[in-house]
């Protein structure tokens, strides 16, 4: 059974038809990159998967369970879907350690010691063990994003959604974040990324989904799709970004 399944998903913002019947099937362990021009609906698609945006038609299932925006549902989902944002969204009034420990203690009801141990392990994983007691504002963008990844991982999600997570970073900081993602991919984490990092999509990703005008315009094996695009739109897009 697939881990994430979208069936004919339609989404409207008022009269604006943003997603026009999306079908997508993602297996556990897959690394799927969603690419496309801004306004093509890729972020919206991602945000529908974890219930941050509601959709009007069709169905999304996650691990067999249906996704809706009902508050309680979002919270159940949060236990299996992690999300990382473009702007990191770390909590500024908490240290790095507190940021990571918060949800495990108050949502998963872990003890402080247990949560601290998990936090330390996750920070270790993203290479920031020594930043446990720092405040987010003291960190570089790349470090903040790695903390955000550690924070999501501390909830032991099955899927990690990444919404343009390197777009707000200075170019020299992009690499450190992508390296963490690559490591996660190798460990078998299911990743769904909205990204502009074509090299990453090709080299680390299994599959690329090209969105255009609210539809899945073209999709397939990442290497194949990016080296020999079929549609004019994708050819044009690849030409513009590479």
């Amino acid at each position, binding site marked *: 059974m697939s881990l994430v399944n979208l069936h004919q998903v339609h989404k409207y913002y008022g009269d604006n038809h943003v997603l026009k019947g999306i079908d997508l099937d993602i297996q556990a362990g897959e690394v799927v990159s969603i690419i496309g021009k801004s306004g093509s609906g890729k972020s919206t698609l991602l945000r529908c998967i974890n219930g941050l945006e509601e959709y009007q038609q069709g169905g999304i299932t996650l691990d067999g369970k249906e996704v809706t925006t009902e508050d309680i549902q979002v919270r159940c989902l949060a236990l299996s879907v992690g999300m990382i944002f473009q702007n990191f969204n770390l909590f500024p*009034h908490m240290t790095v350690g507190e940021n990571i420990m918060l949800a495990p203690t108050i949502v998963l009801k872990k003890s402080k010691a247990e949560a601290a141990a998990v936090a330390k392990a996750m920070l270790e994983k993203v290479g920031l063990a020594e930043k446990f007691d720092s405040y987010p504002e003291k960190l570089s963008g790349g470090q903040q994003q790695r903390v955000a990844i550690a924070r999501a991982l501390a909830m032991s999600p099955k899927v990690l959604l990444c919404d343009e997570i390197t777009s707000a970073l200075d170019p020299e900081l992009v690499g450190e974040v992508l390296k963490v993602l690559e490591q996660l991919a190798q460990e078998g984490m299911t990743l769904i990324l909205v990204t502009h990092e074509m090299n990453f999509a090709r080299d680390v990703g299994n599959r690329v989904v090209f969105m255009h005008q609210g539809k899945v315009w073209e999709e397939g094996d990442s290497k194949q799709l990016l080296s020999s695009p079929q549609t004019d739109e994708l050819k044009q897009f690849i030409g513009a970004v590479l």
Partner: protein
Amino acid sequence: MLHFSDLFQYTDVFLSGLLTTVELTLLTTILGIALGTCCAAIRQYGHTVSQRLVAVYVELIRNTPFIVQLFFIFFGLPAIGLKLTPWQASMIALTINLGAYSTEIIRAGLSSIPKGQIEAAKVLGMNFRQTLTRVIFTPAFEKIYPALTSQCIIVMLGSAVISQISVEDLTYAANLVQSRNFRAFESYLVTALLYLVLAIALRFIFNQIGKRLFAYREVR
């Protein structure tokens, strides 16, 4: 000639007045901010109907004189069977007044929180109450803390009006003393200085609390 020494025999009167003002100030500051916080949260995140109700409350209080609010509660409410002591009426009037003003101030703080913070809390599985108390409140209060402090001081100073319904506060003491010994200049000068000290003390307390709450700013 000025005769400050004539006030010495009334030291107890001043002290007891001061104590009443301090007592009322501390109580109404805590209750008023609590009320304002609840109303601000409703105004910002509540359902339309409750949002409207809060808006009506805030506008009603902010657009009428405090002394009229006080007189209404003390002299008006007994007509519908709600009889309050001067002290109770003052406490309620001050709390309601501070509540309305702080609602608007705190709401400004809440609306300054980026949507992404709330989404981050949501995708980590926190419910709304947890998000509000753990994620939103501290940075929101930090933004509006100076404004909130000033408003509390304004309400403290405005509490002088409650002497009009014979609450024996600091202003009541000043009125009493100058009516006994006709030393209006001395009496009101001393009272003014006492209010000044109170205002400075209140600001100091707020600053100390702020330093604790927003310690993360200091270490930046």
